[in-house]
């Protein structure tokens, strides 16, 4: 049997204890061990940003981390943003209102990145928004309505995200 390590991770406020192989990626751990499939995997080499999550409130590419590295950490995924599909987080609501998504695959990473941006810069300029999103690839939208959604979310939340 492969070597397994015990990890304790708090994901979206729930504490999970699991024995995992050291080589298991955090993205695979979230998706296939915990069933949190809202975090998507687009490239597995840290460029596309679809798998972006918050680890101890910092942006992280879950495809570039091993699950064992998250031992003792607090992880936030897209499932942790809103209590339910009928009660969306303001950033999710803004993406809906501004048509900020098409296929939805890059969206989780965009949402998490936006939350981190607005916590740091409550009212970013368009240039700051585009720079903040430049590590997240989208192949559907041309980014225009994503930028619009972030702008809308900033106006509505005043940094309280």
């Amino acid at each position, binding site marked *: 049997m492969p070597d397994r390590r015990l990890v304790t991770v708090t994901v979206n406020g729930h504490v999970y204890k699991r024995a995992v192989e050291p080589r298991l990626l955090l993205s695979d751990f979230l998706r296939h061990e915990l069933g949190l499939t809202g975090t998507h995997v*687009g490239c597995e080499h840290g460029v596309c940003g679809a798998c972006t999550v918050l680890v101890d409130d910092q942006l992280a590419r879950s495809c570039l981390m091993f699950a064992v590295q998250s031992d003792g950490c607090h992880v936030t995924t897209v499932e942790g*943003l809103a209590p339910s599909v009928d009660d969306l987080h303001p950033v*999710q609501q803004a993406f*809906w209102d501004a048509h900020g998504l098409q*296929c*939805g695959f890059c969206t989780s990473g965009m949402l998490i990145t936006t939350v981190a941006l607005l916590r740091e810069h409550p009212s970013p300029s368009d240039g700051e928004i585009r720079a903040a999103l430049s590590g997240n690839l989208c192949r559907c939208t*041309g*980014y225009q309505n994503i930028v619009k959604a972030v702008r809308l979310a900033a106006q509505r939340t005043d940094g309280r995200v």
Partner: protein
Amino acid sequence: MAGFSPTRRNEDPRLLAGLGSYVDDIDPPGVLHAAILRSPHGHARIRSIDVTNARHHDGVHAVYTAADLGRFNQPAPLVVPHPNLTHGRTQRPLAVDKVRFIGEAVAMVVADDRYIAEDAAGLIEVDWEPLPAVVDFRSAIGAELVHDDVPHNVAARLAQMVGDPDRAFQAAAHVFEEALFIERSCGSPIEARGVVAVFDPRLRTLKVWDATQAPLTIKNGLANMLGLPEFNVEVIAPDVGGGFGTKIMLFFAEEVLVPWAAMQLGRAVKWTEDRREHFISANQERGQQHSVRIAVDADARILAIDDKFVHDTGAYTPYGMVVPIITVTQLPGPYKVPNYRSEFTVVYTNTPCVSPYRGAGRPHGCFVMERLIDRIARELRLTPNEVRRRNFVRPDEFPWDVGLPFQDGAPTRYDSGNYHAGLDLAEQMIDPTAFRADQAAARRAGRYLGLGFAAYVEGTGIGPYEGAHVRIEPSGKVFAATAVTSQGQGHYTSFAQIVAAELGCDPADVTVVTGDTSRFNWGAGTYASRALVTAGNALGLAARAVREKALALGAELLEVGIDDLELGNGRVAVKGAPGRELTLGALATASNPIRYAYGKEANQAALRLVKPREGAVLAAGEEPGLEAQRFFAPERATWASGQHAAIVEVDPATGNVEFLRYVVVHDCGTLINPTIVEGQIHGGVAQGIGGALYERLHFDDSGQLVNASFMDFLMPTAMEVPEIEVAHLETPSPLNPLGVKGVGEAGTIPVAALVAEAVEDALSPFGVRINEMPLSPPRIRELIEEARSYG
């Protein structure tokens, strides 16, 4: 019919909450995981394969090579045969004896998890005999043979003619010649491909989830290959993370290998493609070299075009000649070309297969045509837009026949459009006069600004047909199913709007199901900008039939004539008699003789109106329920069109191109949801910008793809794509009830042509000429140097 308006998308809350269901999100109980061993060579013979170590690896359930597949390992069907496709070749699920491109599947491992499967794939020992690879399609003829039985690597040749080009060239005031090259790129959806299959050996039923654009075709093909009744096979394209043409292939190796393995093992099997695999095994497109001549009269009116081009099909021809045929037929674009000769040669290379990618041959044709327009303008000292206007098909000249058969075999006949109005509007938006003043001022300050335009048409909405099923449930909610899939185009909303407009209800009360073969069993799929035209109209027809049923039943129950009724706000009401009405839910309940006690107050009210009937509850031929199934088969394509304009700034020191403005005028007939249409255009333009400036697949001399990662294959980010200003014209199509035309590919088509004109304009002080795409910063610097050295 009621008008349409922008509306938020029905599908979004689920996707935003992380509750989408993409193929890799589906983990059936006990699922095993597959990994594919792929060719590391562009071209090589397989001397032997030893899978012993892989088979003995802990956690491995099976390792399959071509020998294990036996008779199942047949070449894929040639989807679009053509008499001139004399040497079409398609790939087998697993390579036999020889590999023809890097990434070609050689063996499959099935194991407890993906990690173990990949470990075991690494233990397979293949004795390779590398062969010289054919990489540059421009020198493929006469090079090493990709297929031993295909002389000169030529898959097909096609020569076609309209009018009398030779005579026109002889009589022409001017003849200009250009050599133009378009590189190879790829769709790169952010979700790569994936397949999950579950086989029930007791019932002999197979259920497959596949990130495909055409699940019905996959289903029927799988049934045939696996010896199962079509009735026992179900294929679902769930949420699909972008397609762009890449995800429609009949068949990718994994689409047949995974279901086959699930049947062999009696276990669920999953395969999820990683990004490197996607770069080397999924299909790609672009890649043409044109040698073109154009004849014009003294007034810049086009008399004839003579175009010869070579088209790179990669290692196989899964889509026959579809892409080059689209190039030929779309090359004239919005212009009148009375005499036209086109000859193309389709050649094999040791590179991944070529099949349609957003634009599908159109960007190439548009690039060629618009480069010719610029050449005419330069030589005859006119503005390019003056040349465009003199040659546009006029609004009173529709239908306009290009004179050649289109990709569907029907005539290439433009149904409607107003190209002059579109160009006028694009000019108003970007204001060339003001720009020229800005440009002059910028040049004095050492900055290089350029203005470019490009015009295009797009044949959309081809057949054969699509269908739809619409049903109202006792809850009053409406359900609609169609075979076309969605990869982000908003079908769950625009289709709901079409149904809601017929039924007089809120689009949010219409649930649309797409791409599930058990929910709708007839149709083709989402490709060629056809879903709205074909499935949208079928949905409209089905909803209208349901509307008629609802009105007829309402008239019977409310004891009035149908003409006395109106439909709106989810109910059928007697005109001018407030309160005399029935909800759609009540009517749905009353329409089914098996009513039981559904209990809703409104339904009970309806049931009180139902009179007992003598004899059987359904008369012969009568159907229960408020539902209908209808089909729409367009007689031929409907032609969308548009004009783009942009202002760019080029930095001669770095070769960087920046967009200062980007304007789109687009005409896709009746707009169902302008917000969704604009989103499609934004995304299309972004992809076009990638193709024009950044994206190029670099194969080395051995056929190795050296930039097979998102670090090295540069797609535009939020920093590179500008704000896009969109204006709509609406010239309805006369070819379908909704008057709609497709929009999916439109944004991409003219971008390379537009960038060429704008960059040439910006660099006009250097005399730079653009005859290739893409234009990377180093290439722009080279072009400036070359222009300088020519003086």
